[in-house]
């Protein structure tokens, strides 16, 4: 059974510290208010280490990796139709 890993963000505890977007910018961008926009597609294996670093770095423990069966992925929270503007400094 193929297992996919999805990057989950708890938007309630997230407090826009922005560490995650610095550590894995390929998957996490920042919106204009400083909050992370998470790529909902499965995490590519070569980025797993960076993702784990981001999960550990979050001061609010807002990030987690969820394993789902590839045949039946649960619908992720983040939208896939997102316009991401990478801002160099979250206000």
């Amino acid at each position, binding site marked *: 059974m193929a297992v996919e890993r999805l990057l*989950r963000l*708890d*938007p*309630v*505890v*997230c407090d*826009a510290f922005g560490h995650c977007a610095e550590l894995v910018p390929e998957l996490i961008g920042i*919106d*204009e*208010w*400083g*909050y992370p*926009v998470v790529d909902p597609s499965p995490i590519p294996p070569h980025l797993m280490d960076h993702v784990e670093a981001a999960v550990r770095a979050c001061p609010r423990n807002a990030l*987690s990796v*969820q394993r789902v069966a590839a045949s039946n992925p*649960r*619908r992720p*929270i*983040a*939208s896939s*139709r*997102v*316009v*991401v503007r990478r801002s160099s400094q979250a206000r």
Partner: protein
Amino acid sequence: MTTLEAGPATARLLAGLGPAAARLDLGSHLAVHGPLALPGRRDRHWADSFVGATAESGLTGRGGAGFPTARKLQTLRSERRRPVVVVNAMEGEPASRKDQFLATRVPHLVLDGATLMAACLNAPGISVCVARGSTAAARSFAAAVAERERAGVGGVPITVVQPPDRYVAGEESALSNWLDGGNSRPQFRPDRPAIPRVKGRPALVDNAETLAHVALVARYGPAWFRQLGTPGSPGTTLVTVSGSVDDPGILEVPIGTPVSSVLATAGAGSTGGVLLGGYGGTWLAPTDVGTPYDPVSLRDVGCTTGVGVMIALPAGGCGLAETARIAHWMASESAGQCGPCVFGLPAVAQDLTVIARGRAGHRDADRLWARLGTIDGRGACRHPDGVVRLIRSAVTAFAGDVNRHLSHGPCPGAAWPSVIPLPRGAEVVEWR
């Protein structure tokens, strides 16, 4: 078995209500619908046939999501622990009055449905949730519970509880969190669809109107239920019609009735557009008012049924200005937990306000559109998604108005008084 007439003002839920629509007490309720057939003790055969009948009826939830009622029931049945039944009569939508109507006129129909669900699931109890501000509804339910106890109707204990009067307090996870002793804020649930839990037990949360239909299906059968409505969405539904109509109120309509017929019954003339579903719903353009009121047909014109709200804009009224007012109000009703909602909703509301006032250019419109894409789906609940959907549908349905506002300034309708009820300001701060 009663024969109930078909037509735009069909009476199934409303059966037995006279012109004054006085409350049906237990005696009147039983006179109209007959006795409630509950199994004497835990009866698996009865439960199976009850689930089968509900599934065959094709009944879908009337609380906005439109989820098949039988499927939710079956999911709860497969849980190991005995579930609790929660009646969602919170009705956070200010423009919707159908659940309060059911509560104050035909409470026994709602309680019958809840009792049947509880019997099927072997639930230890039922919680009826009524918003704190709806004192009449709470009183009516409490009186109905007392009537049933006195008459020995049977079924598990029913408690009436009143969570805070917030827009999002009726959301499933907010409701279960409050019942669990927390506050009325929606909870982050990464696993969807998640079964809400109250004190460790799984909870069947159903809208009050859904349960009323369940009670009718149990009495008259799924074939009877399917006599009205569409094959995909059978039955009738309650619609709260308001706005620029002569005869506002609650109508029971077979699903599939054209929107224009419903409005005509409520005494509407030509309209500038119709807000469907609720404040997180969609706008029906004036050219589309002939669309049948069912999920599939409405989806083709970019609309949803939601909780049966129907607000008619006057001809010449400004849908953009009204949407901007709604968006501001919805922003103030945010639970305040998630950044995209807390910051995004006021921002898009302000963008739309500037457009409605005719002080915006095309770049402002582009920025609004981009922001809508950014906010969508990034909260813990669907509140920001609803606002995004509302604004997107307004810009689509009133596309001509948008261009006119951007190039020529506001239309006269933008200055007209609002037909959208927006109760309470941000002073109400209680969440527990």
